[in-house]
C-alpha cells in the first residue's frame, strides 16, 4: 500500500481525499489544511491524521505521494519541499504562477525520477481521448481551424472575494477555466506558439478577468480561437468543447459526445459519410470508485499506477503543465503590450 497525504482541503482536495481514501492500493494517512472546521471533521470522523502545517506533516509521516490542492501561489514551495523528501507529487492546476519556478520543478522531478502529474482531468474524459485518436489517424484530413470553448457559472454576481478573484494567487477565469482549455488544445491539437489577438474582459470581478477570448497559432501552423467565460449562467456547470474543421470533415467534441462529419466514409474507424454521433458511454474508463465523474478517479489511478510501476507518465506531466503556464504568460504579455 502506498502512503498518501493531501494538502489543501477545498473542493478539489476533499474530492481527491475521497478518491484516495477509496483506492485499493493507497492508504490515505494524513491531510493538511488551515481550516480548523475541516480538520476537526477529519479528526472526528475519519482515520487520517490531520495537520495544519505542511512541513510537519511531511516530517512526521513517511509518505510515498502527496496531492497538492492549495491555491496556486503555494504550489512551488510545497512541491519543492515534497521533492526534497523524494515524495511523488500530484499537483492541482494551474501548475505554477511563475514559469521560472515551474521550470525548476520540472528539472528536479527529472533529476530525482519522481512521478509528477498536474490535475488537467479533461485528458481522462473518454471523448477527448477519442478526438486525439481520430486526429492521430488523420480522420478529418488537414486541419484548417480549431475552436476551443469553455463556459460556466462561477462568478455571476458582483460580490464575494476569495483567492479565485485574485490573479496574484492563481484566480481569475484565465487561470481557473482557460488553463484547462489551453492544456487540452496543446496536447490534442498542437502547442500554441504565437498569440494573434486577445480580449480579456472583467464582467463582475474587480481587477480580474471573467472572460478570455484569444486567437492562437500552434507549432504545427494550425490556427484557431479560444473562447472562455466563467460568468455565463446559461451553463449549469463548466462546459468544455473543441471544434476542429479539417479538409475532409469536422469534429465537435465535448465531455459527453463527439459529432463527426465526414465527406467520405472511413472504414478503419468505422465512420460513415455525413454525421456520426458517439457518446461518452462508449468511451468511459471503468473505475473502482466514482465521484463527480470517472475522469477524477482515472487520473489518480494513472498517477498511482505510474508510482507502482516506477515509470514516468506521458499524460499531464509537470512539463505539460508548465507549457500551459507559458501560454498563459504569452497571452497576458500580448494583452499588456497591446
Amino acid at each position, binding site marked *: 500500500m502506498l502512503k498518501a497525504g493531501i494538502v489543501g482541503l477545498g473542493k478539489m482536495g476533499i*474530492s481527491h481525499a*475521497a*478518491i484516495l481514501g477509496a483506492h485499493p492500493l493507497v492508504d490515505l494517512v494524513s491531510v493538511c489544511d488551515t481550516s480548523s472546521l475541516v480538520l476537526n471533521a477529519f479528526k472526528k470522523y*475519519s482515520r487520517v491524521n490531520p495537520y495544519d502545517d505542511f512541513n510537519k506533516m511531511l516530517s512526521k509521516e513517511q509518505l510515498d505521494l502527496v496531492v497538492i490542492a492549495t491555491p496556486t501561489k503555494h504550489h512551488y514551495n510545497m512541491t519543492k519541499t515534497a521533492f526534497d523528501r523524494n515524495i511523488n507529487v500530484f499537483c492541482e492546476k494551474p501548475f505554477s504562477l511563475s514559469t521560472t519556478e515551474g521550470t525548476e520543478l520540472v528539472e528536479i522531478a527529472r533529476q530525482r525520477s519522481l512521478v509528477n502529474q498536474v490535475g488537467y482531468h479533461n485528458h481522462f474524459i473518454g471523448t477527448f481521448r477519442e478526438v486525439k485518436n481520430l486526429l492521430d489517424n488523420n480522420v478529418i484530413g488537414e486541419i484548417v481551424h480549431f475552436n476551443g470553448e469553455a463556459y460556466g*457559472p*462561477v462568478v455571476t454576481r458582483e460580490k*464575494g472575494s476569495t483567492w*479565485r478573484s485574485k490573479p496574484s494567487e492563481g484566480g481569475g477565469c484565465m487561470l481557473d477555466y482557460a488553463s484547462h482549455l489551453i492544456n487540452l488544445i496543446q496536447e490534442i491539437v498542437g502547442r500554441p506558439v504565437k498569440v494573434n489577438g486577445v480580449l480579456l474582459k472583467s464582467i463582475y470581478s474587480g481587477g480580474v478577468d471573467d472572460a478570455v477570448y484569444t486567437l492562437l497559432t500552434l507549432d504545427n501552423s494550425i490556427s484557431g480561437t479560444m473562447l472562455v467565460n466563467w460568468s455565463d449562467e446559461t451553463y*449549469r456547470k463548466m462546459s468544455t468543447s473543441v471544434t476542429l474543421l479539417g479538409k475532409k470533415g469536422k469534429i465537435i467534441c465535448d465531455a459527453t459526445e463527439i459529432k463527426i462529419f465526414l465527406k467520405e466514409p472511413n472504414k478503419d474507424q468505422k465512420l460513415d459519410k455525413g454525421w456520426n454521433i458517439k457518446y*461518452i458511454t462508449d468511451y468511459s474508463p471503468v473505475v473502482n470508485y466514482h465521484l463527480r465523474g470517472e475522469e477524477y478517479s482515472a487520473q489518480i489511478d494513472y498517477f498511482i499506477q505510474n508510482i507502482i510501476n516506477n515509470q514516468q507518465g506521458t499524460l499531464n506531466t509537470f512539463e505539460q503543465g508548465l507549457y500551459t503556464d507559458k501560454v498563459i504568460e504569452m497571452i497576458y504579455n500580448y494583452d499588456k503590450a497591446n
Partner: protein
Amino acid sequence: MEKILFGDNQFFAINHISDEKSRAQSIKFKDDKSIIKTLDYAMEANINTFMCTTHDRISKICDSIRENPIKYQNFKIYPCLPYAHKYANAVTELGLTNSLKQFVPGNFMGSMFKGGLAFLGKDYIAIMELLIDAELKIFEKIDTPVIFLQNVVTDLLLGLGMDEILLAFHNYIATKYGVEAGFITMNMPKLLDTLERVGIKNPIICSSINKLGFRMAGGRACYEDVLNEKQFRAIAMQVLAAGAIPPQEAIEYVCSLPNIQSILFGASSKANIIQTTTLIHQFHETNEVFQNVNKKNTESSKVVLTS
C-alpha cells in the same frame, strides 16, 4: 415504494450524454407550468411518485401541489438533498464558512442557538441536521415517505470513510421526520457494504443500473452479484444510460435482474413517458424473478417501518 418513480433531471437541464439536449430542455422547461404539465402526463401514466432535488424551482412545484390537494391526494415526493451545485458554486465564490452562513437560515453564528453552538463546538452532525431542516422546508405538508442523500455527498462520505455521518443521516430522517432514509450512489456495492457494517438493515439504495455498465463503479458484473446475493431495496436509475441504450433493450435488461424494487426515470415528453412505462410493465409482468423478489422486499420493508 412504487414500481416506477419519476425523476427531475430533465427539468433542470441535466443530460448525461448531451450538452445540446440539456440546452433544449432548459428552454422547454423555462416556466413552472411546463414542469407541472409533464408531471400530469406522468400521473396519467399512473406514476404517483416524483423523486426530485431541492432545486429552487421545486418549491414552486410544491406550492402547486399544496394548492391542489384533491388532484395530488395520492402524490408523493422523494426529496433528494442537498442540491450540490448550489453549495459547490457558493463555496467557490464565498469560501466554506460564508457558504454555511448563507444556507442556514437565521444568523448562523449568533441568534440561532443550535447553529451557533454547533459551529463553535464543531458539532458536524448538528450542522448537517440544520442543513437538512433548511432543505426540507419546501416540502412541508407533502407526503415524503423516503428522503434521499444525493450521490455526491453519499459517495464523498463513503470515500472519506465517514460512515458515522451516513448513519447519522439515516437516523435523523427516521427520528425527526418519521420516514425512511435512502441513499443515491455511483458506488452501490461499496456503499451497501458500508451501510451493512454500520447496522442499517435492508437499506434503500438508488444507483445507476444499466446494460452498458455506465456510471457503475466496479463494473456491471459486480453489481449483478450484489443484486443476486444481498438483501437491500434497490432502485435502478440511468437504466437507459442517458439514452445510449435503445429503450426496449434497456428495460428488458433491468427487469431481468433480481432485487430491483423500483425503476427511476425522467422524460420530457408524453410519448416517452408512455413508452417507458409500457415497457416496464411489459417486462415486469413477464419476469417472475422480479415479481418474487419484489414481494419479498415489500414484506421486509414493512418490518423496517414498524421496528
